[in-house]
C-alpha cells in the first residue's frame, strides 16, 4: 500500500531523514518509533505530500506522491502532531467542512459525519464550539476529521499525546479497530502502545532506520539480551565460576551480596540447571528469574548510542580548546 524507497530529506546542513526505505502492505498497522527529533514527523509529512523529499520516491496505492499529489491526498487521512483545528467552528461544522474538502458528496455527507462522530466518540459535543473543548475531545475531533472520507490509508502523528489514561485506552481500541479496514501508520514514543496496537514496528533514530519487524521479532532478534537473575547464599567466587560453566551461559556478572546476572544465549532456559546446581552444592537459592528483553530494552539499546556520542562531543571540544 505504501512504498518508500531511498527517502532523504536534507534541512540546510543536516539530514532529517537519510535513505529510509520500507514497505507497508494493505491492512497493516505500522508503529513508527523513535526519540523526539528522530525524523518521524518529517517522514510522515513527506508521505502526505506536505513536505517535498530531497531524494527518493514514495508510492501510495501505486501512485507516486510527487506526481499524483492530489490523488494521493484523497487516499490519505492525516492527523498532524499538533491537531490543528479551527477554534471558532462547531464540531459538526468542522466535520462537514472536512468532508466537503475531502470530496464527500452531498448525499453521503450526513451519514459520514454521523459515522465519524460516533466512532471517535464526539457525538455528545457536536454542537459545541471547538475552542471550548478539552484536549482529549479535540484530539478525537481531529481523528474524526482524518477518517471522515474513509481513506484507505491513515497517518496518525502521535495520536495519544496529551490524553488521560482512559482516553488513551479508548483511542488505542479505536486504532486497532481501524486497522481492520485501513492501512495505518502511527507514530509514538510510548512503547506499550506499539506492543498493543501495532503488528509491525519501525524504529528510526537520527533519520536512519535502525529496526524493522514485529514486536516479537525485534525482541528475539536482540541476541544476548535475555538474562537470568540469580541470588545464592554461597561463596561469591565459587558460585560465579559454577554459573559460568553452565552450558548456554554467555557471561556472568556479579552484583554483590550473592546476586548474579547471567546472560543467556539464544533464549535458552537455564533455571533447571541453576536449581540443580544449588541443590548439588547445598546453596540456598533466594532468587531465580528469567527475563526476556522488553521492547523498551530494544528501543533504548538501538537509540541511546547516538545520544552518548553527542554528549561526549562538546567535552572533547572543550578539552581541545
Amino acid at each position, binding site marked *: 500500500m505504501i512504498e518508500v524507497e531511498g527517502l532523504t530529506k536534507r534541512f540546510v546542513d543536516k539530514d532529517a531523514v537519510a535513505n529510509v526505505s520500507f514497505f507497508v502492505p494493505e491492512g497493516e498497522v505500522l508503529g513508527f518509533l523513535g526519540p523526539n527529533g528522530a525524523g518521524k514527523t518529517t517522514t510522515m509529512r513527506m508521505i502526505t505530500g506536505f513536505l*517535498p523529499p530531497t531524494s527518493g520516491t514514495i508510492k501510495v496505492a501505486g501512485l507516486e506522491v510527487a506526481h499524483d499529489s492530489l490523488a494521493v491526498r484523497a487516499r490519505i487521512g492525516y492527523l498532524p502532531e499538533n491537531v*490543528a483545528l479551527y477554534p471558532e467552528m462547531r464540531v459538526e461544522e468542522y466535520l462537514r467542512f472536512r468532508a*466537503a474538502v475531502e470530496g464527500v458528496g452531498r448525499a453521503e455527507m450526513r451519514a459520514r459525519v454521523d459515522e465519524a462522530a460516533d466512532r471517535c466518540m464526539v457525538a455528545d459535543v457536536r454542537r459545541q464550539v471547538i475552542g471550548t473543548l478539552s484536549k482529549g475531545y479535540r484530539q478525537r475531533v481531529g481523528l474524526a476529521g482524518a477518517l471522515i472520507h474513509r481513506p484507505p490509508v491513515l497517518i496518525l502523528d502521535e495520536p495519544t499525546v496529551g490524553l488521560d489514561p482512559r482516553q488513551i485506552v479508548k483511542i488505542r481500541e479505536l486504532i486497532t479497530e481501524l486497522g481492520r479496514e485501513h492501512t495505518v501508520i502511527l507514530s509514538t514514543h510510548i512503547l506499550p502502545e506499539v506492543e498493543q496496537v501495532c503488528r509491525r514496528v519501525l524504529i528510526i533514530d537520527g533519520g536512519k532506520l535502525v529496526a524493522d519487524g514485529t514486536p516479537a521479532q525485534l525482541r528475539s532478534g536482540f541476541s544476548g539480551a535475555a538474562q537470568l537473575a540469580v541470588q545464592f547464599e554461597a561463596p561469591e567466587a565459587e558460585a560465579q565460576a559454577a554459573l559460568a560453566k553452565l552450558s548456554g551461559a554467555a557471561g556472568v556478572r556479579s552484583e554483590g551480596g550473592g546476586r548474579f546476572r547471567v546472560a543467556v544465549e539464544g533464549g535458552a532456559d537455564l533455571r533447571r540447571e541453576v536449581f540443580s546446581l544449588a541443590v548439588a552444592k547445598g546453596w540456598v537459592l533466594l532468587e531465580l528469574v528469567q527475563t526476556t528483553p522488553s521492547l523498551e530494552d530494544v528501543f533504548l539499546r538501538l537509540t541511546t548510542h547516538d545520544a552518548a556520542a553527542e554528549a561526549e562531543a562538546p567535552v572533547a571540544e572543550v578539552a581541545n580548546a
Partner: protein
Amino acid sequence: MRKLFALVERELLAYFSSPLAYVVLTAFLFINGYVFYLIVAFLNDPRTQAMAPLKLLFGGTIFFWLYLLFVVPVITMRLLAEERRTGTLEVLLTSPVSEGQVVAGKFIAAFVFYLFLWLPTCVYVWILAGHATIDFGPVWAGYLGIAVLGLLFLSVGTFTSALVRNQIIAAILAFAVLVVVFSIGLVENIATGAALKGALGYMNLWNHMDDFAKGIVDTRHLVYSLSLTGLFLFLATKALEASKGR
C-alpha cells in the same frame, strides 16, 4: 466547485465569528458616514458649485483611499497567515484541494466581506434619491469601480498573507505594497516626458476611480486592475506552494 464553496463558507464563518469583523464594519461605517455628512454639508453651502455628492464619496476625497489602504490589509491579514501559525494549513494542504483552490477560496471570501462593508452605503443613495433626482449610471459605475479596486487591493493582501505566519506583519506588508500600487500612478503629476507620463497615467488609480465615479467605464482601467489581481493571486499560489512544510 463544491470544495471551493466549502472553503469560502468556512472563511466567511471565520470572519463573522471574530470580533475583528464587527470592529472593521463599525469603524468603516462611522468614517463613511462622517465623510458623507461632510460632503453633504459642504455641498449645501451656497458658495460651493453644484457637484454630484456620490461622485465625491466614491474616490473623490482622500478618505476613500485612506480607508481602502487601511481596511483591506486588516481584512486580508488573517487569511493564510493564521492558518500557517496554527497549523491548520497542514491539514488543508494534505487534503485533496489544490493550492490554487485554497487561495481562491480565501480571496473570494475576503471579497464577499468587502462588498458587505460597502452594502450599507446604499442607504446614502436612497437618502439622496429622496431629495433629488439621481443619475443612476454613475452610481452603478462607481460601485463597479469600488468592486474592481477591491479585487486588486484584496489580491495584494492575500499575497502578503501567504508569505508570513504573523498577521500583523502580513498587514504591514500589504499596506506597504498597496501604497506603492496606489501611489505609482500619482507620480504622473510630476513626471516629465510624454512616454513616462503616459505609462504612469495608465497606472493612476485615482484617475481610474474618478472616471468610474463620473460614470465612465473604461476597459483599460478594468484590464489594468484585473490583470494585476490575477498576478497577485498567482504569486499567492506560488508562495503557498513554496512554503509547504516550512
